[in-house]
């Protein structure tokens, strides 16, 4: 047992896993932050312009079907190797779930709350920010959680286009056929993703509980 832990520590240090994890999480956070900001704004925009909602969502839907590696690769001529295309690809993938859920959430807000808000004298802007968006938070959080999983996936692929992160360790492991490195880095990447997803799930559930309008879907 101790021997295994010892080997893990040696491997961990040899392959700079602490640094790689930090790189990984850094890319992940930047990508997700951009995705949340653009995705939520996009959701709000298509909510306030219902005519463009369907075309925009359809377009995002098509982007969603593109294989992640292929998307990453066609961005290379534009953005060069490294973190640029990785973050861009993550954002492109994450737009759909966040924008779609924001849009659906804003639309699904119970009409009686909007009616009352209007009747007690809230302006359209107040209604959006004080009523619609807060009441949509559980659904928006659900979208962000899906985006989080996508982003984790694309950021890991980033290793293949010299973006660093845990994908780099996996790539080296496979190329050098070092089984224990692959297992260690693969498991660690998986665990990290599951933990983050789980954390997001907890937040989502909390929001459902607090805002009490919908039940958690699972």
């Amino acid at each position, binding site marked *: 047992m101790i021997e295994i832990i010892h080997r893990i520590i040696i491997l961990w240090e040899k392959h700079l896993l602490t640094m790689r994890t930090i790189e990984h999480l850094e890319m992940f956070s930047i990508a997700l932050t951009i995705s949340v900001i653009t995705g939520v704004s996009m959701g709000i925009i298509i909510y306030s312009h219902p005519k463009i909602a369907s075309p925009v969502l359809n377009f995002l839907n098509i982007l969603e079907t593109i294989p992640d590696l292929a998307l990453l690769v066609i961005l*290379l001529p534009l953005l060069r190797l490294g973190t640029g295309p990785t973050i861009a690809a993550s954002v492109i993938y994450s737009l759909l779930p966040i924008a779609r859920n924001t849009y659906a959430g804003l639309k699904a807000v119970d009409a009686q709350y909007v009616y009352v808000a209007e009747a007690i004298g809230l302006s359209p802007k107040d209604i959006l920010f004080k009523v619609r968006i807060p009441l949509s938070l559980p659904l928006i959080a659900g979208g962000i959680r899906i985006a989080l999983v996508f982003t984790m996936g694309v950021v890991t692929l980033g290793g293949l286009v010299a973006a660093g992160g845990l994908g780099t360790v996996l790539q080296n492991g496979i190329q050098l056929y070092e089984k224990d490195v692959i297992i260690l880095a*693969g498991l660690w990447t998986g665990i990290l993703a599951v933990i983050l997803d789980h954390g997001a799930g907890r937040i989502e559930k909390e929001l459902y509980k607090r805002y009490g309008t919908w039940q958690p879907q699972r």
Partner: protein
Amino acid sequence: MAATALIINATWEHIVLVYTSLVVSILIALPLAFASLYSRRLALVVMNFANLVQAVPSFAVVAIVVPFLGIGFFPALIAIMLRALLPIIKNTYIGLTNIDPALLDYAHGIGLSEWQIHRFIRFPNAYPAMFAGIKFAAILTNSIAVLTAFIGSGGLGEIIFQGLIGYNTQKLLSGAIPAIILAVLIDFFFTILEKKITPEHLKND
């Protein structure tokens, strides 16, 4: 431009890999989903595992197959299935269980056998959800099949990785673009199939 013959060959390899994985996944997933109806334990394990693995990056799944199965077509197939099985099982199970209990009562009441209930009630009811799962799995399969070229599955990903080594833009694009076209075609094809296959009363619009 990479030789057209090379691209066609790679595309063919890619399609074979995608559809083999998809068909095998469906053949395994459907019986598992049905079996889950009879065992709450199995259902619980399958659903939890499905939710867990969905969060794991594809690259990690693809990589972790290597130490156990080596490289090549077969390990790639397994890696793809690990990801593709779950949405199908999960969706089918949800479709099968998400059914009006009154309808089941009624079915028992008019004397349908267990098999007839599956055949005439549960299965048609589960169709849309199951199909959505398969569609999702097909797109996922197409996506991972590009990546598995990294562990020697061949196909369009192979051209991309060759392009990456020397940073050859033409090669990169001649691998990526057919993969994207295939993805759009799969989506298109499955959307049409979905419309045809969905029973009239379950259609939304």
